[in-house]
């Protein structure tokens, strides 16, 4: 059996979140790439593909919704699963991100770190 290291793109502008997530996910054996804003995420996705994308919504410049829209137009888009990670959690916002193609919408403050890691694992190994 060949096991490939799963690649995750973390799109998050808040250092308190991306530092802890990057460390926790790396500790779990994932290959984590960080994009600290939407534009950078699109640039990275132009040349690389990932197994999973963790996407924040509120970011300066290109926000999460913009990224959700843009990824679909990329020539090498591989339909990677996208988990939205945001503190926006009104029903309309959840509906919107799911309608735009997100696999799930996680409200950051309401979920513990182990719960988030667990979700990531479930989405990577269905």
């Amino acid at each position: 059996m060949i096991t490939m290291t799963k690649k995750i793109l973390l799109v998050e502008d808040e250092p308190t979140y991306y530092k802890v997530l990057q460390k926790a996910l790396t500790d779990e054996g994932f290959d984590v790439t960080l994009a600290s804003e939407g534009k950078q995420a699109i640039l990275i996705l132009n040349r690389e593909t990932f197994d999973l994308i963790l996407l924040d919504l509120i970011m300066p410049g290109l926000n999460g919704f913009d990224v959700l829209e843009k990824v679909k137009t990329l020539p090498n888009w591989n339909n990677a699963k996208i988990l939205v990670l945001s503190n926006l959690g009104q029903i309309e916002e959840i509906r919107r991100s799911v309608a735009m193609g997100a696999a799930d919408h996680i409200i950051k403050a309401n979920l513990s770190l182990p719960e988030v890691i667990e979700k990531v694992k479930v989405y990577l190994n269905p």
Partner: protein
Amino acid sequence: MPLPIQPAENKISWFKAESVSIILALLTLNAFELLRYFSFDYVDPFPFLIVVLVYASFTSYGLITLIITLLYLIDYFFTNNLPSHSFFAYLIVFPFLTILDNLIKFSLQEKFNPTVALNFEKFRSRQEFEKTKREFISMAAHQLKTPLGGMRWNLEMLLGNKSTVLNQSVKATLTEVYASNLKMISLVNNLLEINKLVNNKNSLPTEAVDLKLTIQNLLNDTKYLTHQNQIDLILEAEPDLPKVYLDPKAFHEVLLNLVANAIKYNRDRGKVVVKTRLTGSEVIISVTDTGIGISQEENKKIFERFYRSPKAIEKSSEGSGLGLYLVKLIVESWHGKIWFTSAVNQGTTFSFTIPLVK
């Protein structure tokens, strides 16, 4: 309906606030003037003039600053005395003074006429004001959630099983911090929930809910809360409960609050019974505990925002006083009723209704 604006009161509060500011400015200036007599360090006036002009154009105190500067210039022409460094000290203090002034202004205005302080004229109607207020609370709460959530994950990483760097006493302290952090998150969530409910009472999404299953699941999920005081959780549900139409998240919130309270304010080895009863037009759900009880005098207050019963505070210092308020708002949103019966030191029963007609 447009808001009545009272220009007379408006003027009085403005005048008072302004005079307080002027008195403060003069007091500060006098203090520096006194200092000036003891100081012989004179400096070139031109750089400070630029600073003054910048202040003058950016702060609401431009006029006062300009007058003071003019006085210094006149002083300079007639006596050839250059301003001392005390003047620079004044310039440093100036922004703080402005902040203080604004605070005083704000509080004075609020006392005299709250509509002025909130700049009501800007809003064309009360609805518009309410909308802005709602958006503001929602934005503030979301902004609070970002650092709180970041704190949470970082603490969870530190306290997690894999971390061995912490000694026991540090770990114990961090556990306290973590508990407070979680409490703040739930407080912010409650605030958001209340904000939403107060304003869109009738627009909660509804769907068919299987009551018995939902209650059973919730009781299973809350079992971990009962271990410490060995409380028995009992469900006495009618066999054939019809489906009801409401927001499942909101119903969960109501029951969770009542059951968690019943566990928290119970005696050791007590009981919590959740009962459902079907009448012609509604389902009545009641949560009975064997705990400290609520006195009759508190009947009105218990559902008020931020109210906590003295006996409840004695039993547990934790609690925001928002839980039952939120519960009442939700129950009323589906046109239900909520009430309680209680005997001190014997127990309390909270009951609420869900109408069957959609």
